[in-house]
């Protein structure tokens, strides 16, 4: 899945094969950072280390919410108004980074968040936060199905399409529409997450 990274040029819709550099679907340079994050979360859970768990949850959750809101409500609508070659050129640089960033921040947030909830007793049925946590599980569940089942396959398919000798511009446009709409939905769901989490923190 990883290829040599160079600058990517916009694909021609159905033109002649050009000399375009390959897009690196998974940026290998980012993998050590991911490994550090995974190990850090594992250590935090293993040691039930309150500060580290809170750090992972706040940093991961802040980035996840911020990125989703920004991409869904700012980048997405802009992208929707661009020409297909412009969308493709933007995506060639943007999506490989998202392939690394999003699963990492989601893993950090969810793994540490569940552990914090257990540690603080928020999962107990008697806790005033219990209902809010169930609401957050449901919101996260919906976002997970949209992000993993619809958005991510489309993103990766776009990157593979752009690596073909003659990419199909119409197909790239269609797959990117899926990205634009689903990113908008997850962006809006993050507003619900913000409301839920601020309620949990202040009960």
């Amino acid at each position, binding site marked *: 899945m990883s290829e040599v990274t160079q600058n990517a040029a916009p694909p021609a819709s159905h033109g002649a094969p050009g000399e375009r550099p390959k897009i690196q679907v998974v940026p290998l340079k980012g993998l050590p950072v991911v490994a550090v994050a995974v190990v850090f979360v*594992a250590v935090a859970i293993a040691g039930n280390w309150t500060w580290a768990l809170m750090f992972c949850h706040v940093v991961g959750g802040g980035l996840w919410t911020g990125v989703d809101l920004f991409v869904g409500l700012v980048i997405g609508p802009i992208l929707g108004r661009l020409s297909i070659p412009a969308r493709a050129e933007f995506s060639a640089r943007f999506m490989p980074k998202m392939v690394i960033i999003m699963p990492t921040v989601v893993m950090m947030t969810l*793994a540490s968040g569940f552990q914090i909830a*257990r540690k603080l007793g928020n999962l107990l049925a008697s806790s005033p936060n219990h209902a809010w946590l169930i609401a957050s599980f449901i919101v996260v569940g919906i976002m997970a199905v949209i992000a993993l089942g619809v958005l991510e396959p489309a993103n*990766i398919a776009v990157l593979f399409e752009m690596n073909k000798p003659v990419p199909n511009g119409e197909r790239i446009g269609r797959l990117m529409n899926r990205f634009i709409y689903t990113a908008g939905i997850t962006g809006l769901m993050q507003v619900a997450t913000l409301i839920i989490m601020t309620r949990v923190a202040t009960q």
Partner: protein
Amino acid sequence: MTMAHGTFDNTVDREFPPIGWLATGALGAVIVGGVLMAAYAPRRAPLGVATGLLVLGVVLLAAAWTLLLRQKNFAWRTFSKVFRWALLAYAVTSAMIEFAFVRDHTTGAPLVLVTLMLVVFATSVPTSIAFTVARYADPDH
């Protein structure tokens, strides 16, 4: 399908059964099951409902693979390459979730259910990703 031997017409989208949607349905079923199990933690969740959701997930994923394996003129090499890398990524994520449950002393039937749900999770997402990529790729000859 407009494809002569040795050539690939990338301007035409081939028709496929809803393999990606079935895999996404399997993902949805185990995520609902996971939410149910998590909602009851640290108490014991109603295992009947969770088992039903797991079975639904397994059936949908099995249906996706059955349809997939019946495909002729499919880009199996591309599918395999993408599937293996994605499986690695989602196996790591699943292992982290499993670790959290084991660390929190989940044992017995609930742990077995969670583990099987994670297996469906770690397989369904790569299936969906790899199929979405391979359906537009040059089929193996």
